[in-house]
């Protein structure tokens, strides 16, 4: 029944799709000027810099530029904060302002330090006198710069320290007996939510306390960075939790905590699944071993994809105004962007919750005590 309805749905979708495609192709033949106008949206990046024509607007390039990490933090108009660049090359460390890497027209310029540095597609490379990338020297270049994401992380760490330390100080002063006040009363339900909805059901009341600091840390770090990413101007605006390096770091920590706290029965269930025939055990061991790595990888990709996709969605709605080249497009684009922004608020919380919950679930799986019954049944619960 369900399958048949899905099948008919697919058939309908494809027929509508092919119908639309056909009319579009047909219309395109008759009205060539209309197609060229739409075609202006398609990639035009034939020239790296300089000779860009007025009116050429590359959506993909614009969006990717906004969600990637940067050496300067844009404030408004032509004002931006130039963050420090810290490089390690074969000649040692070097620190300079990223202002030196752009000229007055905001185009990449060559900075002469120990080597000649130039920004190539957002990455600092060593160039020779002719302006070509020196591949061998660039391989030894390590970029430790305070980029936009790093600076945004500092902001979020500062906010977290202020909020959480003041809440902690209130508990120290008044204890847990009196009613919470101020920021404390804002933080208490969130912390209790993480404890009662995330940690205890997944890890168990006995061991949950040991992992609460870790779970609270990742929960609040993801949450504050998701929220800061949704603010389009200065203190926010950086795409920290939509950066794969950031989510990878969190996932690596989850991986370490899970595998360090894993008990004997966890490893037994991975390498020599109890209650199975020996041939099945041999078959399951590599699959379970891959599972050890895919769990944190899926954590990493889930957070990255959700936040990045949210940013892309909002940016593409705003880009509609520039695609249609009329301010009236904003009548549709802005309400939709606000609507998506509201959904993103939910997603920001949800992803922090899901990351924490899955981390707690993995820890719970690794620390669970198994009571082997007579049949050695692997299914629990």
């Amino acid at each position, binding site marked *: 029944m369900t399958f048949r309805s899905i099948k008919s749905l697919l058939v309908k*979708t494809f027929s509508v799709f092919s119908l639309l495609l056909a009319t579009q192709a047909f219309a395109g033949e008759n009205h060539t000027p209309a197609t060229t106008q739409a075609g202006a949206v398609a990639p035009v990046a034939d020239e790296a810099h300089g000779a860009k024509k007025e009116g050429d607007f590359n959506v993909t390039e614009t969006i990717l530029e906004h969600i990637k990490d940067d050496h300067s933090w844009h404030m408004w108009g032509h004002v931006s904060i130039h963050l420090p660049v810290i490089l390690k090359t074969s000649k040692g460390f070097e620190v300079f302002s990223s202002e030196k890497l752009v000229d007055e027209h905001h185009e990449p310029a060559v900075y002469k330090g120990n080597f000649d540095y130039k920004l190539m597609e957002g990455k600092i490379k060593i160039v020779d006198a002719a302006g070509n990338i020196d591949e061998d020297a660039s391989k030894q270049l390590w970029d430790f710069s305070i980029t936009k994401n790093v600076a945004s992380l500092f902001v979020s760490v500062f906010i977290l320290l202020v909020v959480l330390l003041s809440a902690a100080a209130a508990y120290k002063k008044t204890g847990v007996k009196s009613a919470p006040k101020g920021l404390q009363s804002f933080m208490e339900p969130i912390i209790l939510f993480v404890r009662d909805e995330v940690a205890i059901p997944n890890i168990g009341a006995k061991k949950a306390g040991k992992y609460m600091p870790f779970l609270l840390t990742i929960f609040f770090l993801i949450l504050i960075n998701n929220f800061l990413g949704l603010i389009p101007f200065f203190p926010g605006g950086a795409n920290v939790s939509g950066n794969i390096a950031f989510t990878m770091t969190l996932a690596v920590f989850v991986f370490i905590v899970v595998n360090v706290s894993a008990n004997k029965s966890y490893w037994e269930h991975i390498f020599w699944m109890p209650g199975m025939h020996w041939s099945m055990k041999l078959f399951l061991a590599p699959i379970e071993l891959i599972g050890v790595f895919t769990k944190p990888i899926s954590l990493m*990709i889930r957070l990255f994809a959700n936040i990045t996709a949210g940013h892309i969605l909002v940016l593409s709605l705003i880009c509609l105004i520039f695609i249609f080249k009329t301010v009236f497009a904003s009548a549709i684009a802005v309400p939709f962007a606000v609507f998506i922004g509201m959904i993103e608020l939910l997603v920001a919380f949800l992803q922090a919750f899901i990351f924490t919950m899955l981390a707690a679930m993995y820890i719970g799986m690794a620390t669970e005590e198994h009571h082997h019954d007579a049949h050695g049944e692997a299914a629990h619960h």
Partner: protein
Amino acid sequence: MVVGSVAAIGAGLAAIGAGIGIGQIGKGAVEGIARQPEAANEIRSNMIVAAAFVEAVALFAVVVALLGNG
């Protein structure tokens, strides 16, 4: 001439899959709540979590489509 890329078709197919998935979740949740209205809160929170999992798969596809496009 049709202007566009295969990536958009891929993203659209992923959206169909996610739509079916989230529809099934919503159907299950509404049926569950209709049978047991007192469990509505618990069912709703589980529904949101499950929907987020389904949505994440669609978003993987969006990111892959975008990277393939760029």
